Each structure stands twice: as C-alpha cells, then as structure tokens.
C-alpha cells in the first residue's frame, strides 16, 4: 500500500491531530491548567485553520482507489467550515468556563472536533461506506453535545428528539443505499453512475427519494424539519450555532456531490422536480412559521430552515456557478448567523433571557449588541450593502442561468419569500430600536471572547459582500471542479 496517499487527507489528519492534542491536554494536564482548555483549543484550531489555508490544497487527488477524493473545491469548503468553527470556539469560551460546565468542557471540544472530522469525510467521500461513517460520526456526537446542559430539562428533551430523528433518517438513507447497491452492484460514486445507465427505473426513483429524505433530515428541509426548532431551542446556544451553520453547510455540499456525481444523469428525469418541490415548501413553511415565534433561538431555527431552501437553489442550477454561489452563500450565512447567535449567547449568558420581548429597547441599554444583531438581521434578510444581499443575488442568478420557465417560477417564489422574510427579521430590529418600552436587559459588558467573536462576524458581514476577493477565489476553485460531468 502506498502510504503517501494519506497526504491527500492532510486536512482530515490536521483535525485529528488537533483532537488528539486537546484530548491529551484535557486528560493529563493539572487542574489549574484546565481553565485554559478553551483558549488552548481556540489557538490550536487557529493554527490549524491557517495551515489548512496555506497547505491544505493539494489539487485534484483520488486516494484509496477512489474512495476518498479531494479537489480545490473540497479544500475550499473545508476552509470555510474551519472559519465558522473558529468563531464558534471563540464564542463558546465563556459558556464552557461557566461553573456548571467545568467538569465537561473538554468533552465539548473533543466531540465538536470529532463531528468536524465526520463532516470532512462527508465532503470528501466518494464511496457510500465512507460517506455513511462520516454522516454518523457527524451526527451522533452532536446528540451528546445537545444534551450538554445537564441541569436544564430542555437540553435532554432536545437531545432525545434529535437522536431519534437522526437514527430514523439514517435508517431511511441506508435503505435507499441498499436499493442503489442492488441496482448498481457497487458503492463507489463513479461506478454507480456508470452502472446505472440513463434509464430511470421505478426502484431507482424510490431509492433516490429515500436518499434525498435521509440527507434532507440533516439539512432540515421541510417535510423533514420537525426536529429543528425543538433541538435549536433546547440545545446550549453554542451547540445551536454550531448545528445551524457548520453541520448544515457540510451537509449541503455533500448533498450536492451525491446528487450530481451519483444521480447526475437522472437530473431531468427524476430529481429536478423533487428538488423544486422541496425548495418551494422549505422556503415558504420556514418563513411562515418564523413569523409566529417568540423565542429567539426558535425564531432563528425557522429562519435557518428557510435559508436551507435558498442554499438548495445552488444545487438546482447544476453548474459551476451554482456550486460557487452555494459555497459563497454558506460562507455569508456562517458569518451572519453566528453574529446573531453571538448576541443571543452573550445576552443569555448574562441574564438568561431568550425571548423576543426581552429585546425591547435593547439599543438604549446595549447599543453595540443591538447594532451587531441589526447587521446580522439585515444580512440574513438580504438588504444591500451587506453580504447577505450579494449571496442571495449570486444564488438567484446561478439558478436563473439554467433558463427554463419552471426555474423562473421557482426563483420568483423564492424572491417573494425574501420579502416575506424581511417582515420577521425586521420585527427583531423594531423591538430593539423602535419599541418605546423600558429596556428589559440592563447594560452590561460582555466577555472579551464574546466581543471578539462578534467583531469578527460583523467585519465579515460588511466585508464579504464588498471585497470581491472572497467570491473570486471561490469561483476560481469551483470552475476547476469536475463534479458536473454526468449531468443529463
């Protein structure tokens, strides 16, 4: 065996090394040094992120007889996720240093890094066995993370809801895989595409529906979204932010790879219409349910459901531009959503309040927090000149480029939904800035780490849209991908 193949997996190995170092630190360091676990992990991960930017890209390489494949696009999406994880790590410092978390803060970081490793495998797997292992190691430790707040009942309720639906969805996904295996006789993505031919069997359509619903659970697309709001509300805020951006971004990319590489030739025959229906229902239901939410985390859960629908628009286009637009959308979504969760987390850590009515008059007591929240809401709603506008613009353009009447209608519905979403995003801004009531939350100074996290997010929300470097480098990486060879 050629051991140099492992060099192609250098980003995965990097995460593993970080994980091992954190594990050793947590296990063997004296009690006093453990207070620095959070800082240690963040710094280590920062080093890894920088190294991954510099040395992570090895070009297009297939390793382990095609089971694992990396390309500039894959390493780019991994780098994007790294940045998000880094912000989550910074924002979670105060929570993990809290009194109730001291015993298990090491576990939080270890589980987080293991799930990240699983997501990396999902992104780079070109064989369904590796993919399923990645999927499971990305979703099982998350259930343990959701149950992290041992003294809060909601945390346990959220965890049980999450684990049961996750197992149910992975069972459905694997059932679909077994049909695919029966039809094609292989689990390699490329071999399946070759063996299946171009004739869409009934069994294949069933298998495809199973696979789409399995991954749809992870992405919380609408018929499979019922766990999302409860889990987001019950989980600790740091875990919620991780779940809403990183896990979703990785699943979206893996979803695109599966649909395009394995089932690419059935695009117009089978899954184009499934995807249209999913997108329309996802965006609409997510928006409508977000309007009636009073809890901020629940509200952001439904907002993230509708955002997942927009991310799916990048897949519908089925071209390099759609891929680039999707990755850019994920990047912008990471920054804007983490800004919102940063503010929510800071306020929750200080006062324990998470209801929208508690935010009345926030701009008078905590102007900076209100400002960061406002920018996040503007970016999520897609108001120029913030990054959210450009990401929505690119994703709509890439979908329209495909040019059929159906897709025009789809994009029109998405656009109308954007206007509807403006209403509930601005409700938060209204509560913070216009509501005449006395501020519920007293003025306070948030922790240094929380402020750092929020500043990074705000800077990202403002700069990502205006500085063209980010989009250019993403589209450069996407243009070189060979993912779309089989589209038919």
């Amino acid at each position, binding site marked *: 065996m050629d051991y140099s193949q492992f060099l192609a997996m250098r980003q995965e190995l990097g995460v593993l090394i970080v994980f091992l170092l954190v594990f050793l630190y947590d296990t063997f360091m004296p009690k006093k040094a453990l207070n620095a676990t959070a800082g240690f992990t963040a710094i280590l991960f920062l080093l890894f992120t920088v190294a991954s930017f510099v040395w992570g890209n090895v070009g297009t390489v297939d390793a382990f007889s095609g089971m694992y494949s990396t390309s500039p696009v894959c390493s780019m999406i991994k780098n994007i996720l790294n940045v998000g994880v880094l912000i989550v790590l910074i924002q979670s410092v105060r929570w993990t240093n809290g009194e109730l978390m001291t015993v298990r803060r090491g576990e939080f970081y270890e589980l987080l890094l293991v799930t990240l490793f699983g997501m990396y495998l999902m992104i780079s797997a070109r064989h369904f066995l590796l993919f399923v292992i990645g999927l499971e190691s990305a979703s099982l430790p998350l259930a343990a993370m959701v149950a992290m707040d041992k003294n809060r009942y909601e945390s346990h309720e959220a965890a049980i809801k999450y684990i049961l639906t996750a197992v149910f969805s992975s069972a459905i996904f*694997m059932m679909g895989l077994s049909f695919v295996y029966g039809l094609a006789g292989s689990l390699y993505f490329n071999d399946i595409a070759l063996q299946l031919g171009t004739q869409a069997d009934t069994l294949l359509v069933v298998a495809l529906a199973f696979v789409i619903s399995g991954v749809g659970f992870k992405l919380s697309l609408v018929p499979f979204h019922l766990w999302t709001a409860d889990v987001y509300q019950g989980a600790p805020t740091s875990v919620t932010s991780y779940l809403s951006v990183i896990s979703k971004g990785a699943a979206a990319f893996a979803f695109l790879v599966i649909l395009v590489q394995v089932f690419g030739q059935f695009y117009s025959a089978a899954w184009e219409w499934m995807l249209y229906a999913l997108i329309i229902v996802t965006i609409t239901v997510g928006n409508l349910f977000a309007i009636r939410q009073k809890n901020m985390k629940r509200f952001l859960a439904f907002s993230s459901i509708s955002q997942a629908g927009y991310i799916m628009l990048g897949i519908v286009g089925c071209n390099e531009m759609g891929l680039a637009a999707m990755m850019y959308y994920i990047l912008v979504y990471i920054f804007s959503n983490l800004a919102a969760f940063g503010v929510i987390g800071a306020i929750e850590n200080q006062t324990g309040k998470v209801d929208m009515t508690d935010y009345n008059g926030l701009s008078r007591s905590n102007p900076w927090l209100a400002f960061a929240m406002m920018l996040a809401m503007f970016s999520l709603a897609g108001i120029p000149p913030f990054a959210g506008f450009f990401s929505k613009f690119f994703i709509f353009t890439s979908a329209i480029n495909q040019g059929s009447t159906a897709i025009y209608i789809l994009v029109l519905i998405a656009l109308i939904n954007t206007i509807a979403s403006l209403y509930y995003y601005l409700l938060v801004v209204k509560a913070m800035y216009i509501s005449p009531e006395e501020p519920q939350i007293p003025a306070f100074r948030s922790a240094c780490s929380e402020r750092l996290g929020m500043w990074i997010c705000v800077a990202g929300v403002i700069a990502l849209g205006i500085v063209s470097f980010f989009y250019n480098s993403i589209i450069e990486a996407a243009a070189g991908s060979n993912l779309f060879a089989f589209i038919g």
Partner: protein
Amino acid sequence: MEITMLYYLIPSLIMFCCGVYGFITRRNMIAILISLELMLNSVDINFAVFNRFLFPGELEGMFFTLFAIGIAAAETALAIAIIINVFRVSEKIDVSDVTKMKF
C-alpha cells in the same frame, strides 16, 4: 423449492415497514428504539442478500453490513444514555410526556 432472493427481500421489507409503523405509533422510548433497530437490521439483510445473490464475487455489501451493525450499536448506546438522562430528570420515558417544547 428453490429459495430465491424474493424470500429474503419481502421479510426484510416487512421488517422495515414494521419499524416505521412502530416508530410512529409507540409511546415508550425504548419501544421506539427497538423499532429503529428493526429498520436498521432490515437494511443489513438487504445488503447481505443483494451481495449474496446478485454480486457473489464481491464483498462490498457484506462489509457495509458489518459497518452498519457497528453504527447501529453506537446509535443505540447513545440513545439509551440520553433516555436514562431524561428519566433521571423527569422520571418518565413516555414520549407524550416529553412535550415541553412545541410548535
């Protein structure tokens, strides 16, 4: 009588449907977990049967089955740990009692 592939696939499909039915209708969390286990095991049967009858020269399906069994065990262990936690907090393992967060 020759035993063909169908004799394995139909029981496996029935198992899967029983699992889905149980997942939806059962109220006890342990029973839900058992239903999930039924679904996962029917997947294992499917893979093993397809491999044995359609592609006898290879072992890919068998390997997938082995890994799927391991994954199912991990899932069950984690789910039971969480159920125990829920029981400690609320003294109940009925899903109709775990409804504090809704809509």
